[in-house]
């Protein structure tokens, strides 16, 4: 069984806190499904702890400690309750989607492909979406200006000689090389995808082109 995990450098940037929010969401969702990567991330957190310990301490304002001691019994703003569990959306992702998988208003893109854009800050740099591809259908051959991270949530797809199933993360080795993912035949394939930059379609374009260019 093939398993596809985030690269060590991506996990390390997640632990360091330097990943942009959309990428952090992809990694947190993978980690919710993968104990092996959670163990690696715990080691990278420990690296951060060791580095913190090594820093030369800097003076706080003279009255800072007393001011904080006065605040210790302040009532705390209640934290939002964790979202209900969902068979497809792990908890961190469910919180961003804001509804269960069955309540998503999918937008049809044609060719058996639907999408739902996540309300997540990414500015013009990143687009974060759920994509649902009907069983056996393909996404037209395309390349990217920047990196694309794809995490499988349901079903699976095959891209070149690699097969990806729930929890697997696909990151293109070379974003400039066109690829054409094909959904597995056993059911709709649902993925969380973060795209950096614009998509470039290399084949016959269809209505997708104008939409993705958005």
């Amino acid at each position, binding site marked *: 069984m093939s398993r596809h995990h985030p690269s060590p450098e*991506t996990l390390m940037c997640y632990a360091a806190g330097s990943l942009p*929010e959309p990428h952090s969401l992809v990694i947190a969702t993978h980690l919710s499904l993968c104990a092996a990567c959670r163990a690696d991330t715990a080691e990278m957190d*420990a690296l951060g702890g060791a580095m913190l310990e090594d820093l030369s*301490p800097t*003076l*706080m304002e003279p009255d800072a400690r007393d001011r904080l*001691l006065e605040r210790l019994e302040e009532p705390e703003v209640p934290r939002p309750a964790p979202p209900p569990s969902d068979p497809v959306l792990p908890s*961190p992702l469910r919180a*961003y989607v804001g509804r269960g998988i069955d309540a998503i208003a999918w937008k049809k893109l044609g060719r058996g492909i639907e999408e739902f854009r996540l309300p997540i800050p990414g500015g013009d740099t990143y687009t974060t979406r759920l994509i649902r591809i009907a069983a056996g259908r393909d996404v037209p051959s395309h390349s990217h200006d920047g990196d694309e991270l794809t995490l499988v949530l349901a079903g699976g797809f095959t891209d070149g000689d690699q097969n990806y199933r729930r929890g697997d993360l696909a990151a293109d080795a070379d974003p400039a090389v066109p690829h054409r993912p094909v959904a597995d035949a056993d059911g709709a394939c649902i993925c969380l995808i973060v795209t950096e930059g614009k998509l470039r379609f290399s084949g016959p374009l269809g209505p997708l082109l104008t939409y993705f260019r958005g």
Partner: protein
Amino acid sequence: MQRLEPRPALGARELDDLVLKVGRGRDREAFISLYKHFAPRVKAYLLRLGADDTAAEEATQETMLSLWRRADSFDPSQAGAGTWVFTIARNRRIDLIRRERRPEADESAAEQVADPAEPADQAIAAAERDKRVRVALEVLPREQAALIEMAYYQDLTQTAIAAKTGLPLGTVKSRFRLAFARLKRVLEGDPS
């Protein structure tokens, strides 16, 4: 930047015990000891990441307040106090300074897509792991340590590190991988 007088630093065990005292008994004396140890380090961390003095001071206070409030969830078998405080400071910085959210893994999720046997076999106690991580940091070759510092202290992703250093992205990636492989070897008990 002002420096504190050198003061004997608290050991990892002592720090763990202090957090446990705060968690179990809301012990203010223990909290003050933790504040003396961690607040100046957390502030230094935030300043290193480019926060101005006011923002660093504010986020440090919020980090220490979170420590007080969440101490009952501290579990020294999962991570030592220093690592735990690092994760709080990192998350508060993302909230308060970068103004983004930090999605966290659902650790309780029972579903596992990868073979769970492997990490369980390799699991070592948190205290031992923290100790070995320090060793690993000391033996890392300079160019690998520099990249890790850029990720942890400059808020740079691998792509941004490549742009900043002028190194090809592939070189940045491979240095990260080498650094992580080294870390793994040391964690598995091979310090060479």
